[in-house]
């Protein structure tokens, strides 16, 4: 393992993050606050408790997940797409590093940023609602795993993308619907049976359910299933990246 190289990539990427820290934080914090105002205060005031939790608190785990997933994807996809776009990828390809080291550097940095923002969102939510975290260790574990797996997914998108439009396409067309339909703002049990079944094909359901369990001890699917789902997703992404570097797909002719 070329740890020096991993560290170099990680530090370089984090420097970019801290250079633009204001932009990186303001936008997610602002949009989360808006969600609290609209869903928590305006609409939530007309909704009874969901499984014993006030609606405002109920949406907190989903909101954090929503932010962490989109941030993980956008950070990692941009992180690897940008060198491709400006041409600095030559250095990465000519360096004495293997795919795992490149991924650990870029995905590690992207996941750290996503996690950082996720924690800021959590802190923001304390200002709006009263929440207690029943199982902090599980909460952190789910947060870390989600950050890493979605950053891995974002890394694949960044390598696949041929232009900035494509870079935005997957998050916009696939991730946003999946996250919105994944139970961020409601419990799956509130849906008609047909939609409950369809929801079971949405991987995000398992993540939000597991994360919410860590907060309130309530779940849509068993916690073991949630862990299995996120493990499977991570393994799939890693496999895809391994294949990309093995074949040189879209990066090495």
């Amino acid at each position, binding site marked *: 393992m*070329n740890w*020096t*190289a991993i*560290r*170099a*990539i990680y*530090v*370089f990427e984090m*420097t*970019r993050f801290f*250079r633009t820290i204001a932009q990186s934080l303001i936008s997610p914090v602002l949009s989360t606050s808006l969600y609290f105002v609209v869903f928590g205060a305006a609409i939530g005031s007309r909704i009874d408790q969901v499984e014993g939790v006030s609606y405002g608190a109920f949406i907190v785990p989903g909101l954090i997940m929503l932010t962490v997933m989109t941030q993980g994807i956008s950070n990692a996809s941009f992180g690897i797409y*940008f*060198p491709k776009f*400006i*041409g*600095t990828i*030559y*250095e*990465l*390809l*000519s*360096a*004495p*590093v293997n795919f795992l080291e490149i991924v650990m550097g870029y995905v590690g940095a992207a996941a750290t940023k996503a996690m950082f923002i996720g924690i800021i969102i959590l802190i923001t939510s304390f200002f709006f609602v009263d929440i207690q975290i029943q199982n902090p260790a599980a909460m952190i574990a789910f947060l870390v795993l989600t950050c890493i797996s979605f950053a891995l997914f974002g890394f694949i998108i960044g390598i696949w993308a041929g232009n900035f439009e494509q870079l935005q396409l997957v998050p916009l067309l696939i991730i946003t619907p999946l996250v919105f339909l994944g139970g961020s703002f409601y419990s799956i049990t509130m849906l008609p049976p047909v939609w409950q079944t369809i929801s079971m094909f949405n991987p995000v359901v398992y993540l939000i359910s597991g994360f919410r369990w860590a907060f309130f001890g309530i779940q849509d699917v068993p916690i073991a299933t949630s862990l299995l789902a996120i493990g499977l997703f991570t393994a799939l992404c890693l496999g895809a990246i391994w294949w990309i570097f093995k074949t*040189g797909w879209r990066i*090495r*002719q």
Partner: protein
Amino acid sequence: MSTILSIQNLRKSYAGGFEALKGVNLDIEEGEIIALLGPNGAGKTTLISTVCGITMPTSGTVTVAGFDILSNYREARRLIGLVPQEIALEPFEKVINTVRFSRGLFGKGRKDSAVEDILKRLSLWDKRDNQIRELSGGMKRRVLIAKALAHEPRVLFLDEPTAGVDVELRKDMWEIVEQLRADGVTTILTTHYIEEAEAIADRIGVISKGEILLVEDKDTLMARMGKKQLDVQLTAKIDAVPDALSSYDLTLGDDGWTLVYSYDVNAERTGITMLLNDVQKAGLQLRDVVTRQSSLEDIFVSLVNQPEAAQ
């Protein structure tokens, strides 16, 4: 001297079927400066990219100090620094950070004194905290070189280092290459400026259509392929070469004001003395006599147009 880079029968075909390298063989000695000369599209950049790991070879082997670039890529790549043709730099990053990054990426631990030394040698030390986008084009090229040298490589590839660079900076680049030679760094540069190869290279390889046409010491090449010309300028204009001089290989130049005599530098007798005697006997008055040696450029053009001349 030992061979630091050995390229054996290297082929590269792109997905579209285009064969960019058609079995290249090249051995490069440690410490030398070799210039690969060739027209656009000759395969220079593909050759460099393949050795550096940016493109994958279709067949053939490349070793750097004995390390195979595929099976021992870590050891091989640590020894190589690459300065690409295009300026590719992170615009918002500080100069010093991007050089530190390169050093780390190639597996060398942080060493501020080494980075400082490189930046000073490239006259970038004063600009170390500037964002790269604030630098001029010439300065950006220096940053690329600094990045390539950050991990103290033994072999440096310069892909068209002075393309689109002004005269002053070009001279600076040449000085930098000279300095590197003093440090024992082997330099392989590609160029289509003949002047550049002539100025700094020890050996010259001519590459065209994916093949190396020849590799030779610069001086040997110049002597072997070089022709000399003698211009005999006259005080009065003439309409045709006088019959008395018809036995010489003469042409009329400058609208009849000059007799042009081509001769081989390597021949035992150049025939100049006899020619000048006969010119006088023919009743012509000399104004001036000038000799010119064909440049590498002429040699190059004749090689690329008639590859058999290389044999």
